[in-house]
Structure formats: C-alpha cells, structure tokens
C-alpha cells in the first residue's frame, strides 16, 4: 500500500523563510508575555513548519475535518511554536499570538484542544500526548480511516514511562499509521550535570534513542531537524513505511537560530531582556514590531 507523500505547498527555500519568521514571532511573543518557553520551540519550529505547510493533509478553514491528518505536540511546553505555525497557516490571526498566556486567551500555556482551533489533542503533562496520539491511530484503524497521526515528542520527554507503554502497544498492533518524531535537542529543562554543574548532559547520548525505539519494535529514521529538505524527505519515508510504526529521531539544537540561546539549557524557559530581544530579532533579520520581515 502506498500512501500519499507531501502535499502541495511552498518550496524548501520558502519554508526556510517561514521558519525564520516564525522564530521571530516566537521570541517576540515570549518577551511580550513575560513568560513561556524558548529553547524547545526554537528547536522544533522547522519541523512544525514543514509538517503544517507540506506534510499534513489538513483544512485550516475546517479544523475538525474528520479525515484530516492529526498532529499532536506531545512536548506541549513548546506550544508557542505550534500556535505560531497554526496562525501562519491560517487557523487564526497572527495578531492573536499577542494574547499568549493572557487571561481568557485561546492560547494557553500548554495546548488545549478545547480552546484552540487546530489542536488535535491536549498535552503538557509529558508523555500523555503521545499516548493520546496512539489512541487516535488505533481509532483510525478501527474506523477504517486512512489518515496519518504524527506525534512530536521531546527527548527529555522520553524519560516518561508512558512513552514506552505506548511504544510497546503500537508495536503490538503493528500500527503503520502513526509516526513519532523525537525532537532530539540534547537538553532537557535541568537534567543531569556533567563535569561541572553548568555542564548539563543530554538526556540520551550517542545512539541511545535510536536503540531504545528500535528495541521497542519501531522502525527508526534519523534526520537533521533543521534541514527542511531532509525533514520533508524523511517524514515522507516514515509515513510511507508499512507494517509497523516509525520513529524519527530529529537531531536539533535547543535554542536554534539565536546564537546566545543555542545549546544553553538556561534558555529552556527564560524571558529575554529588551536588549536580548533586539539582538535576537536582529539575528533573525526581523523587526521588533513584527511587520513583514
């Protein structure tokens, strides 16, 4: 059985530009909200832009279309990356990002499927979104639907036991309508320390993540999560794989795109100062006001 690969949409260079603009929206929004996460959203944004603009079979003007592909951001603390992507894709106005985390906002700190158009599953307590995504995939098979469910996990999230409960079940049912993509940015919020307390270790090193997913019976692909061409090709391969579930280990850099945030665990959830915001936007070629950039 051959499944559909990418949908029509912007070319890679255009996607790269969308991702650059998305990064500017992210840092502006977090600075404006005086709270939220940055490191994880910046590591996962290229993937989300690629998924929502070229991979997912979706209808932004009909968010609940029953046959749409599903995407669950299980690493829910990167919600601002998802909201930015959804807004740019047309689910709601980009100006609404300014309400992030504000009272009465549809854009909650962690994704809330009852609040925001385009959210397929609530998430935030790590590991749960992936489990819900598995349920969607099992339901799709039971209902005879042929859409694909994508779950985006963090590497630190893979500490959670429920991830492996779900991974085991997906293999037992030989589900080939679910793709797990692990944003392997090599840092978690605090994590284990290395030689010094400032040196924080990756939650998984070397081939550990590949080995673990493989041991649970998943086909595993790896990709450079910041190379959008590689992302499109690898995710398409994952979707087209038949006979069992596929995990994609997406190698990324936490804080990617802003020099002083990259590979620095302290930017997991720090609010930039005015000077830091200005420097970040300058590096992204963006303006503080958020106009066309």
């Amino acid at each position, binding site marked *: 059985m051959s499944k559909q690969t990418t949908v029509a949409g912007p070319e890679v260079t255009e996607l790269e530009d969308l991702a650059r603009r998305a990064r500017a929206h992210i840092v502006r929004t977090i600075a404006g909200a005086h709270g939220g996460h940055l490191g994880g959203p910046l590591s996962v944004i290229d993937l989300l832009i690629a998924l929502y603009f070229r991979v997912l079979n979706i209808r932004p003007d009909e968010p609940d279309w*029953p046959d749409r592909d599903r995407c669950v951001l299980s690493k829910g603390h990167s919600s601002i990356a998802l909201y930015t992507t959804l807004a740019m894709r047309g689910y709601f106005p980009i100006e609404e990002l300014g309400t992030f985390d504000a009272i009465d906002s549809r854009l909650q700190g962690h994704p*809330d*499927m*009852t609040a925001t158009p385009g959210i*397929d*599953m*609530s*998430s*935030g*307590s790590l*590991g*749960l979104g*992936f*489990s*819900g*995504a*598995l*349920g*969607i*995939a*099992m*339901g*799709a098979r*039971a*209902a005879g*639907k042929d859409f694909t469910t994508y779950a985006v996990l963090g590497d630190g999230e893979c500490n959670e*036991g*429920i991830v492996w*409960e*779900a991974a*085991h*079940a997906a293999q*037992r049912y030989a589900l080939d309508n679910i793709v797990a993509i692990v944003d392997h940015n090599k840092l978690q919020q605090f994590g284990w320390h290395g030689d010094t307390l400032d040196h924080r270790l990756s939650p998984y090193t070397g081939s550990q993540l590949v080995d673990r997913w493989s041991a649970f019976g998943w086909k595993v692909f790896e990709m450079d999560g910041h190379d959008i061409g590689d992302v499109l090709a690898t995710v398409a391969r994952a979707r087209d794989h038949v006979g069992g579930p596929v995990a994609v280990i997406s190698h990324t850099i936490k804080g990617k795109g802003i020099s002083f945030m990259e590979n620095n665990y302290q930017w997991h959830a720090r609010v930039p100062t005015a000077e830091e915001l200005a420097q970040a936007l300058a590096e992204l070629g963006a303006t503080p006001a958020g106009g066309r950039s």
Partner: protein
Amino acid sequence: MTLTKGKALRFVFGETVAELAETDPRIVVLDGDLGSSTGAYIFEQAHPDRFFQMGIAEQNLLGVAAGMATVGFVPFVSTFACFAVARALDSIRVLIAQPRLNVKITGGYAGLLAGMTGKTHLMFDDVAVMRALANMVVVAPADEVEARQAIRAIVDYQGPVYLRLTRQDSPIVFDDSYRFELGKSTILREGEDVTVFSTGVQTTRAYEAALLLADDGIEVHLVHVPTIKPLDEGGIVAAARRTGFVVTTEDHTIIGGLGGAVAEVLSDRYPVPVKRHGLADTFGESGPDDALLDKYGISVEKTAAAIKALVRDRGKSGGTATRVAVEAAPDTPGRPGVTDKE
C-alpha cells in the same frame, strides 16, 4: 428477611456493554490485562474486533481511550479501580476530564471486597478522587437491575464517566419497574426517624439494615444515591427535610465520598446533623468478605448498629458513625484507624 441473590456487577458490565455494542458501533472496550476478572472477557467473546488489549500499562490504557474518543468511539476502559484511579490519574485528568472526552472508566473490584488482595488492591477512596475532578460524572450502581440501566444511560451521556463496579455477587434491591436516571436519587423506603443516604452495593446492606431497625422500632427513610456526581441536590435536601437527621453509609472512606458530598450540599442548603458511616480513614487488608465487612463496620448488622447508636444519641455532638461501628467491635484484632481523635 433478606434480599434475593443477584449477579456481580462486573459480569453485568461485560454482558451489558456487549449487548449495547450489537447496535452501537461506537462502543469499544480497552482492557488492562484484567479482562478475565473484570467481566470484560464477555465483551471480547462477543466482539473480538472491538476489544483492545492494552497490557499492564494503565497510564497508556487511559490515554489511548482518550485518543479513540476523539475519532468518535465510546471507549469503555476496564481495569481495577485502584489502577484506573490511582495509577492512571494523570491520564484521566489531562486527557479525559479536562477535554471532557467521551470515555467511560469502569473501576472494577472497587470498595472493600476485592477478593483476598489486601490494601494494595482495595480502592475505597476512588469516589473522593474522581468526584474532585471537574467534568467527571461518578456512578455507583447497587445491583444488577440498576447497573444494566446505568450502563445504558452513560452510553447515552456525552462525556467522561467513572462507573464503580464490584466483584462479589450483589443482592437485588430493584424490581423491573425501576427506572435509573442519571443524576437522580431514589427513595427505597419511607420512614420518619432518620434519613439514610447510601450508594453502590452498600445500599443493599443499608436496605437490610433498615429492615432490622424497623424491628427495633426505628423507621429509616432510605434514599439510594447512585450518581454521586452530579449529586441530586433537590432530592438530598427533600429527604433530609423529611426527618431532620441524616446518616450516610457507603463502601468507601468517610472522607470525600457520598458522605462528604451530602454534607457539602446540606451545609449549604439545609443544615441538619449529618453523620457519616463507612470505612475509616485507613487502608484495608486481606480477608474473606464477611470478615472484612464485619471488621471494617459495613456489614448489615454493623450498619444497623451504627445507625441505631446514632439515632439514640441524636442531638449529641461529636463522633461519626464509623467510630461508633469500630467501637462496637472491640474484640476485633488489628483495630482499624478511627476517624477522629478525642
């Protein structure tokens, strides 16, 4: 006089869900490797393609149910109450209660009588936990007649439900004319001396206790409360008004279950003395059913004795019916914890 014998609610669950699935293609059952105990095996035999074994992994069991609900299924999750409520609470809270997804959680082997398993498996604080979750409906049927109707009703209801099921055979208190209605209580017996609210299978014991008390000249106004959330506030207030003195009894701790729910409503709307009878603030232990019911104070006789003592001492402050029940059994070794210190 005793009630006639009836089926265990776990088997009623398996049979009823299998029957409803004949005409409702949305119904699926997810099992946490306990189907041979919980009655879910009956569904698997009838609908093997709609029975999903999820293994010994309860967090994921509940999470998968949530996902299946989003694509239109009505998943019944089947495991023991201890594992659903305690082990998988985060999945229930974040993926089922908060998004108000249409998942029916059945907590098997709830209460004191879980078949020689001991405190790890005895779950009698489940109602308190589930009742505290916004959006969650909590139902505890008394017998097979009511359980059949309640299961039908919760399929018709759109939203998350916790259904309390029990292991041992339950006597039958309802005849075929009974009509279960979600969110409604029902008067089982009229009396003027004390209003007793009960829920779940403890209602069968409360009913027999009321008959014993009638022989002693105490007329119990007995109200069965199968839906603990949302509570039938009007029915509770009306029944409290009838006698002006309230006792609650349940196969659950006296903290946060039916007794807590009734006390909350009456303190707001019709303040009268409320005494809570049930299990003490303790964990259980292994033992035969009769010995457990006796030691922990919720047998027919102990329930009757507790109500009698409370009616006798009506107007005096202090104490709960649980303390009365425990003290009424001074010869029992390993005295369970009391509910209040003096």
